[in-house]
């Protein structure tokens, strides 16, 4: 599957600082991700940010974030 067709998942983040910390951590570990604004309605709290990444990295990414104490919210598949 080429990169353009790769399925993307989003990890909702608790704040912009956590999103930036997460992006730095995952990119440094070659789990390529980017900070995006969450799609409308994806969080009950209103606007927020998330990490968009290939769904194939998702499990490892979540583990890595939790291990580093980086707070995150729901995962959007």
């Amino acid at each position, binding site marked *: 599957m080429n990169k353009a067709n790769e399925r993307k998942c989003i990890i909702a983040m*608790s*704040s*912009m*600082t*956590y999103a*930036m*910390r997460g992006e*730095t951590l995952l990119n440094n570990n070659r789990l390529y991700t980017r*900070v*995006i*604004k969450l799609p409308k309605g994806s*969080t*009950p*709290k*209103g*606007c*927020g*940010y998330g990490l968009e990444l290939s769904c194939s990295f998702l499990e490892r990414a979540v583990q890595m974030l939790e291990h580093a*104490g980086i*707070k995150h919210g729901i995962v959007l598949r």
Partner: protein
Amino acid sequence: MIYFDNGATTLPKPDGVFRAVRHAMGLGNPGRGGHNLSLQGARLLYSVREHFCTHFSAPSPNHVCFFYSATEALNRVMKSVLYQGGTVLISDMEHNAVRRPALSLARRGGTVCYFKGHGREEEIVSSFGAAVKEAHRAGRDVKLAVFLHTSNICRQTLPVKKLTDLCRKNEILSLVDCAQAAGHLPLHLQDLGADGLCMPSHKGLFGIAGAGVLLCSPKLKDTLEQVPTLVQGGAGSASLEEDMPLFLPERLEAGTPGLPAIASMGAGLSFIEKRGYEQISGQLSMLYKHCADRLMHIQGITLQASELRGIGPLLFTADHMDNAVLSDALSARGVCVREGLHCAPLAHDSIGTGRDGGIRVSFSVFNTTAQIDRFVCILKEELCAAGACR
């Protein structure tokens, strides 16, 4: 122009600071949108946060909070920790950035206790211990101790580690005002054992005015996440919630951050790292000594608090002339020094310069001994012209 008022704001600023401000002015509002310029702004903000975290050994970037000044940072912590009352312990050398919020808390039912913040290290530590004991004996709940790292009026550095050790032993949170120390010598939150360090952008960190930082320990972070916020507003996320976000730093950072000022601090920090603290503190000590050695031989001038040790500015008074008049005369000759109370009447009272204060000479790494020699020459001429060189 000879600029010796670096204790108020450092001048000139390094070239990198101008570049950083210009760059930040071209970016969007950090964390306020999903478009490229907003995200670039957020990345820049985060990179400075990370830089401060590493440089000052904070536990994580979440323990680095940006405010609009160090005064605001100090106020926010003091008023948050003591929002339900209690006692705050401060030194008798504090700037109004600490004294006034402490007195304001006292007017609202809290208590302020003082300890001696000048003199020999043992005297300061012993005075601190005695103040804690006395407060406990009186049944007071001492929640927070706030003290400066380095005085803004004279050469006095407090034994911060020993004081924070006493705080921990007595379960008191400690907050250190590093306004005059940051950028002059290495400061490590964890090595100092402090719960909070506050510092402004525009002094030793060589940034522009409009930003201040709080670096906090896990314990202070937990406290600040549990108490009500003093300022509320947009935070860029969780907008439907009535309260501010639950986590630091966003919980404390309501409103648009001053990105150009924050970026300038980051560039200032890079300048400091390139120079190295050994060179910076060595040069500041050398300039102090060079100036003090010359001033002490001038008739009609008294060096104040010259017996004190540490880093910090040089303070003198004119024996037969109004300090403000002398300072004015120096200004007319192109010398910038600061006379008066330096927003620290408590400290002037403590060292004996009372209501009149003195003339402060504060250096940066851009100053030279040649400038000091010229200043000394002008000073002598002005004193004699006023008939005050007796």
